């Protein structure tokens, strides 16, 4: 158990050091996210408020945007990082750890998620201050919903990361998928009820209820929460299976260390 704790600390330390070394990249990423948000916000306000993301136009935009930022961060922690590790030639070193690659990956995701929450929190505060739209940030309700929403994204990230091990140059596909997340978040459930089974859609819907209308977690419909949890788990499981299958193929073909 001690060894796992040491490994987790090593992964977290590495991520913090990298963040510090790439501080300009981190800050410019945040600023870019903020600028894109403001352009969207001002654009939508200028149009006069076509119903976007669940009908509550501007507040809905903030919630959806926040979840999208968290999603692409979670997605990149997996798909991009795996791709990057394979590219620079450190992936095999992670694979030959006696802790197990899956554990190391999990530690990486935990530390990535922690950092994402911090940055998203900063972004949320800035977005609320500049737009004057204040949302309910009841952490007991918001955090579980966010984590459950991200399960599906992690599933997609695992699947993409796995495919990258085998097919290598699929960055373009990675990038396109980041924008598919926007579609998942923007689909209104009242018009497209089947969309509740897509990743992020139900999560976005419930988060908007919590953050805009102040609904508490336990006041949300149990069926909706069950759909959120089950779809998240299903996508995560599918992603993990795809990843394991891809890693097996990569090992059979000797592709883990090559890019």
């Amino acid at each position, binding site marked *: 158990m*001690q060894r796992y704790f040491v490994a987790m600390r*090593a992964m977290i330390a590495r991520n913090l*050091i990298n963040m510090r070394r790439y501080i300009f990249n981190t800050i410019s990423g945040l600023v870019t996210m903020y600028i894109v948000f403001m352009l969207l916000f001002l654009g939508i306000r200028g149009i006069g408020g076509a119903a976007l993301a669940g009908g509550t136009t501007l507040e809905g935009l903030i919630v959806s945007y926040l979840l999208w930022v968290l999603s692409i961060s979670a997605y990149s922690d997996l798909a991009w990082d795996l791709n990057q590790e394979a590219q620079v030639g450190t992936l095999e*070193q*992670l694979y030959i*750890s006696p*802790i197990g690659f899956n554990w190391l990956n999990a530690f990486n995701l935990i530390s990535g998620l922690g950092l994402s929450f911090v940055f998203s929190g900063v972004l949320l505060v800035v977005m609320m201050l500049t737009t004057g739209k204040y949302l309910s940030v009841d952490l007991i309700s918001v955090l579980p919903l966010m984590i459950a929403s991200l399960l599906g994204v992690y599933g997609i990230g695992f699947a993409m990361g796995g495919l990258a091990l085998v097919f290598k140059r699929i960055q373009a596909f990675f990038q396109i998928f980041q924008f598919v997340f926007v579609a998942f978040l923007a689909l209104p459930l009242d018009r497209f009820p089947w969309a509740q089974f897509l990743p992020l859609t139900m999560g976005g819907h419930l988060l908007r209820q919590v953050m805009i209308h102040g609904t508490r977690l336990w006041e949300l419909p149990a069926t909706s929460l069950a759909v959120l949890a089950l779809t998240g788990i299903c996508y995560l499981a599918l992603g993990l299976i795809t990843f394991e299958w891809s890693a097996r193929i990569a090992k059979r073909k*000797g592709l883990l260390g090559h890019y």
Partner: protein
Amino acid sequence: MSMLEIKNLRKTFASKKQKVVAVDDVSFTVQAGEMVGLLGPNGAGKTTIIKSVLGIVEPDSGTISVKGFDPSRQPKQLLSHTAAVLEGSRNIYWRLSVWENICFFAGIHGISVAVGKSYFEHLLTTFNLKEKRDSEVRLLSQGMKQKVAICCALAKQTSLVFLDEPTLGLDVETSYELRDALKDLVQNEQRTVVVSSHDMDVIQDVCQRAIIVSNGRVIADEKISDLLALFESRTFKLVVDGAHHPELLSELNQMVLPVSSSTNDRQLILKVNLPTARDLYALIDLLREHGAELETINQEAPDLEKVFVNLVRKERERCNGTL
């Protein structure tokens, strides 16, 4: 129990166009505390063998065991005894410092900084990296990067270490430093090291045994001294003062012994195969008769490179059906 045991290992890489047998029925064992060289031309299968042991390449058939652990059934137990620097990969993070890399790779092996600190410091001293401790790896020379990668593998303090082409891209001085460090490892830490390399000097210098692989097959597995003895010849190189000795050369050519000669501005250089001591004395007498002053005489010793080239050439000829 052997540290590493490989039996009948076979690995084929198949694509739509062709099927390549990378490793073909390879078997060998490495005992604890041995430093073994794995030699072979490009594409011989050395890296595939190492990666199969580490479980990052799945073999088609055969068995592998490290301290009795199988990579497919007990990967974590096996990997807790194994570390490697792999060829063709960075192996380390260039954005982290030397120390941060060592701590990270030891950490993901379950060794905390608190536990390993004094050993990590020892590695920095051994590999002359102390001054670069806090430098980002990307700012270091190729040789230093390679040394950091080796330190990171050694920091895991495993009993078996694979070094795949550890001297690739190193300058002569760094290569010598590395050899000393490797010898130190085996002598003082009783580690088992498998070194795969093209650099025959390194293998000859640091290893007790060499396994030569060609076309995916083991073509020799012998002590280095035995391999050298296989190709030992009684060829002597004689340097004679004065470049012009036409009579001597004509008499030499009448001798049954194979002789080759060359000259420079002031010397005649002879290469003669002298199977017995009597032949050597006869040659010396002949030189004396012609008043040729012998400057130096040396017996040509075979080196591992010649042994390697000979063995690999023979194997190729065998494969092509010319033998």
